[in-house]
């Protein structure tokens, strides 16, 4: 540790150097006195001979490595002062660096987390999901299977190593004074071994839990435990009353275990499972398999075909006429294709942004190097060694890179957090954790730092490459400056402008599409409506009469509350409507199958949603309470299945009702009214035929309520929940919220996310293009100072000079914009399916984007152009 002591005891070593020299001096004086010189004379003589002590003291110090730090420190102070003198340059360079680094790190982190590493499961790349595709209807398939089918697939071990299945189940947790609805999953034996994740606390489900006489247990999701149970470990070992069964909580799963998006997982023999609410009482299991290494998804799908053929004969109702099996990687199944595409596109764009950010900084540094050539030549002439100049430049580069990196890390951090916050639910796998990716960050930082160091050294290299006097005599005073590299610089600007045009174009398409989406007439009013799903305990609510016994008093109580205008039962949350069923219309024959959506509702349904009646009338309370077979249809239903005929008094048959556990045996309903069309397949899908029948006709199907309030519905949540529990404390209120909220979540959240992202990139692109244009124009005009001065001395007006500089910028901008627009038109076709209500070839958008780019670009040219006009001709010429 001697070296450390030397470093810390520098004051001491300085003192020693002094006393060593002092000793020498004294000896010298003594020597002179000895040789007969008078003391005064001896002292003077010795001192004279000693000469400039400081100079060789410095030389002594230089030999000690620990003192090198002082000169490094001086280099840094000098570099800092240099940068402070050129604040505009420093700020722009640091900002461009940070922007490039930050943006690329943020988006690459998200892509990496969401696409490449979404799951923490064991060998997650081998996990596949299985789907059944209806070949007649492009998007109609089921990704869930009967237990028989699952077992057969699992036995099919030559393509799969193993397979597990889960069954969704609403779980009502009875906490005594109220009830909580939790998303449950029954999972097959071996599920936790299959995913290979150790529990966070306690234990996972084990084979013993699946024994016939085993005590009922369950495990909980980490997030649920944290959010709903205060992350309190003492809950483990406690008994919970879940759907009427007392179960012991035995473990909390790992934070990233979220299979099926469930909040709790329960063991159960498939034979015992009785699902709470299913349209027709059939249990559908989600299946995940681990594919054998070397087996492709296509091979596996082909292998499953015979199984499907076999079961299509056993369960003909479960299979469409023409079908095929599909095996897809788990990650693909969870992440929508468009989202993946979008992320890939953005990654490419951001990679380019990083590149361009670096190119910008390089341009800035080159511009600065040119203006400093003289400074360096002078310093070299005054005796600065090349090593010393390089060191000073490195210090400058280091400061720039450091500041850029710090700001860049901050941008990256903020970017990741922002993106993570605006990614809508259900867009990415719930297992995904969006966080900053360290290796990506390091890559971006290194790329940025390399640019700075590389281009920062240019002045020193130039000084050493060219002879000094040449550099002093002529720098950048040729008529148009050196042509070297000019082509490259121009190309960079053109590329920047083109990319920025494409980004801005995409962003504005998304904006316009989003605006168009929000203007879509719904046909119903979502304001002042609150809604909640109400899963009824299945043991006590089996028949229509039992369901009525809950809703009839509840709706009456709600309606009596001041502030509530209407309250209705509903089996779905608008603008997504109902249950799909085959339909027959009395007296009308047709060859193809007819389908309709239908809903189970109470008499106030139309009033809550303000859907107008076109013909006939709405249900009466009596009709609903007596479960009369009456129906309302929408306008599309009327047009499609009745044509010009009068539907009132006609009868329709909703065949789907026959398959309900609480089946309606003769599902013919008399049409008593026609209502106006309202969206029932979301905002962008065409409206489908829809029918409404009294909710009391069956005890099956999911239930919920819709409540129209007079004022803001948010404060009414508690009141409504209180009334529900007062009616039956065993009913849990699921996801109560306003209809506006659900509309936003399911309809606007995803496009808004797209908007956010492209908006961000559009803005970034604009910023970078501004910096890029500015730096190149500044560089070019700096090189032409002499020429411009000469021109002005010869009589050119300031305006001519301005026009000349702006003209150069304008040419680059025009090229860039034209290329960018051409690229945009190609891009438009790619993104067309993500747009709604706007033409990708919209002239207004194209013109607007071009205009914005042109304005911003010219503004960036204007600063150096104005500087050029201020060149003092005399000064420029005296430069010589």
């Amino acid at each position, binding site marked *: 540790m001697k070296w450390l002591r030397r470093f810390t005891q520098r004051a001491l070593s300085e003192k020693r150097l002094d006393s060593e020299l002092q000793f020498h001096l004294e000896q010298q004086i003594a020597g002179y006195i000895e040789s007969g010189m008078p003391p005064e004379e001896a002292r003077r003589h010795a001192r004279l001979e000693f000469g400039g002590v400081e100079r*060789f003291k410095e030389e*002594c110090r*230089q030999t000690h490595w620990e003192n090198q730090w002082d000169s490094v420190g001086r280099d840094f102070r000098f570099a800092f002062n240099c940068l402070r003198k050129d604040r505009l340059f420093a700020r722009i360079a640091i900002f461009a660096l940070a922007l490039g680094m930050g943006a690329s790190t943020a988006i690459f982190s998200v892509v990496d987390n969401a696409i490449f590493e979404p799951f923490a499961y064991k060998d997650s790349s081998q996990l596949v999901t299985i789907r059944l595709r209806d070949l007649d209807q492009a998007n109609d398939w089921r990704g869930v299977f009967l237990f028989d089918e699952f077992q057969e697939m699992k036995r099919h071990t030559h393509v799969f190593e193993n397979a597990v299945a889960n069954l969704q189940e609403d779980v009502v947790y009875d906490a005594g004074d109220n009830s909580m609805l939790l998303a449950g999953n029954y999972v097959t034996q071996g599920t936790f071994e299959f995913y290979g994740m150790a529990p966070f606390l306690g234990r996972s489900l084990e084979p013993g839990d699946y024994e016939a006489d085993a005590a009922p247990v369950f495990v909980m999701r980490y997030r649920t435990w944290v959010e709903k149970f205060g992350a309190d470990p003492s809950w483990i070992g406690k008994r919970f009353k879940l759907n009427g069964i007392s179960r012991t909580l035995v473990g909390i799963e790992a934070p990233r275990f979220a299979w099926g998006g469930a909040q709790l997982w329960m063991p159960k023999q498939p034979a015992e499972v009785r699902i709470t609410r299913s349209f027709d009482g059939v249990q559908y299991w989600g299946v995940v398999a681990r594919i054998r290494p070397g087996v492709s998804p296509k091979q596996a799908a082909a292998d499953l075909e015979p199984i499907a053929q076999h079961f299509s004969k056993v369960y003909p109702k479960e299979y469409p006429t023409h079908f095929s099996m599909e095996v897809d990687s788990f990650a693909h199944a969870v992440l929508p294709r468009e989202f993946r595409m979008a992320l890939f596109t953005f990654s490419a764009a951001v990679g380019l942004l990083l590149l361009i950010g670096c190119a910008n900084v390089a341009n800035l540094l080159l511009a600065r190097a040119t203006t400093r050539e003289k400074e360096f030549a002078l310093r070299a002439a005054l005796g600065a060694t090349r090593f010393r100049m390089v060191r000073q430049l490195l210090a400058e580069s280091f400061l720039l890179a450091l500041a850029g990196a710090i700001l860049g890390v901050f941008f990256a951090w903020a970017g990741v957090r922002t993106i993570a916050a605006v990614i809508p639910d259900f867009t990415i796998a719930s297992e995904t954790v969006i966080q900053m990716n360290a290796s990506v960050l390091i890559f971006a930082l290194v790329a940025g730092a390399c640019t700075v160091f590389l281009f920062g050294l240019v002045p020193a290299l130039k000084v050493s490459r060219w002879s000094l006097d040449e550099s002093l005599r002529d720098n950048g005073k040729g008529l148009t400056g050196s042509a070297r590299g000019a082509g490259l610089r121009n190309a960079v600007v053109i590329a920047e402008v083109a990319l920025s045009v494409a980004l801005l174009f995409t962003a504005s398409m998304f904006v316009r599409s989003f605006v168009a989406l929000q203007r879509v007439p719904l046909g119903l009013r979502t304001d002042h409506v609150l809604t909640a799903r109400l899963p009824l305990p299945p043991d006590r609510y089996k028949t229509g009469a039992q369901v009525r016994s809950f809703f009839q008093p509840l709706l009456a109580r709600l309606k009596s509350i001041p502030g509530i205008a209407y309250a209705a039962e509903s089996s779905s949350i608008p603008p997504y409507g109902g249950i799909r069923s085959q339909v027959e219309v009395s007296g009308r024959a047709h060859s193809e199958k007819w389908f309709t959506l239908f809903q189970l509702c109470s008499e106030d349904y139309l009033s809550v949603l303000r859907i107008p009646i076109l013909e006939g009338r709405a249900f009466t309370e009596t009709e609903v309470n007596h479960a009369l077979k009456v129906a309302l249809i929408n306008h599309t239903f009327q047009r499609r299945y009745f044509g010009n005929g009068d539907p009132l008094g006609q009868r329709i048959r909703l065949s789907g009702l026959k398959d309900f556990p609480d089946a309606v045996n003769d599902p013919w309903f008399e049409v008593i009214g026609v209502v106006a069309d309202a969206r029932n397949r979301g905002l962008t899908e065409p409206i489908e035929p829809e029918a409404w029948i009294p909710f009391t006709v069956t005890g099956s199907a999911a239930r919920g309520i819709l409540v129209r309030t007079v004022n803001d519905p948010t404060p009414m949540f508690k009141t409504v929940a209180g009334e529900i529990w007062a009616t039956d404390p065993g009913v849990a209120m699921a996801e109560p919220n306003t209809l506006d909220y659900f509309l936003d979540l399911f309809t606007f959240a995803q496009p808004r996310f797209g908007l956010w992202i492209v908006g961000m990139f559009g803005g970034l692109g604009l910023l970078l293009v501004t910096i890029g244009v500015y730096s190149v124009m500044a560089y070019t005009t700096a090189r032409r100072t002499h020429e411009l001065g000469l021109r002005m001395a010869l009589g050119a007006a300031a305006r001519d000079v301005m026009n000349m500089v702006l003209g150069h910028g304008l040419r680059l901008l025009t090229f860039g914009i034209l290329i960018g627009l051409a690229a945009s038109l190609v891009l438009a076709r790619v993104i067309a399916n993500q747009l709604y209500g706007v033409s990708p070839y919209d002239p207004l958008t194209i013109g607007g984007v071009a205009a914005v780019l042109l304005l911003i670009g010219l503004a960036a040219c204007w600063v150096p152009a104005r500087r050029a006009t201020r060149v003092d001709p005399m000064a420029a010429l005296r430069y010589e």
Partner: protein
Amino acid sequence: MAQAKGAQEKGAPEKAEFLKGTLDMLILKVVAAAPIHGYAISQRIQQISKDFFQLPQGSLYPALHRLEERGWLEAEWNDTATGREAKFYRLTRTGRKQLEAEMLHWERLSDAVALILRTA
């Protein structure tokens, strides 16, 4: 050789390099005899060379510190005969090796130069 004084001046880098090496060798040789302080070194070099070398402090001390930094010399603070504390330099093992190498090199060089001067 009188130019030893100008060793630190700019403009004659090759010569300085050569002379600097010579100076180092002479210092090492003087120190090799016994631990010795800076003033005595300059005195001895002056003495032995019969005043041919005037070794200025501006050359001596940077050279001493440089040799110490390289590990050829080591220093210790001791009392002199007059009871005054001074920094005494001593040759290290690597310093001795370096001295031998430099002396060998110098002998060959001076032999070669002498040969040329005599015969050419």
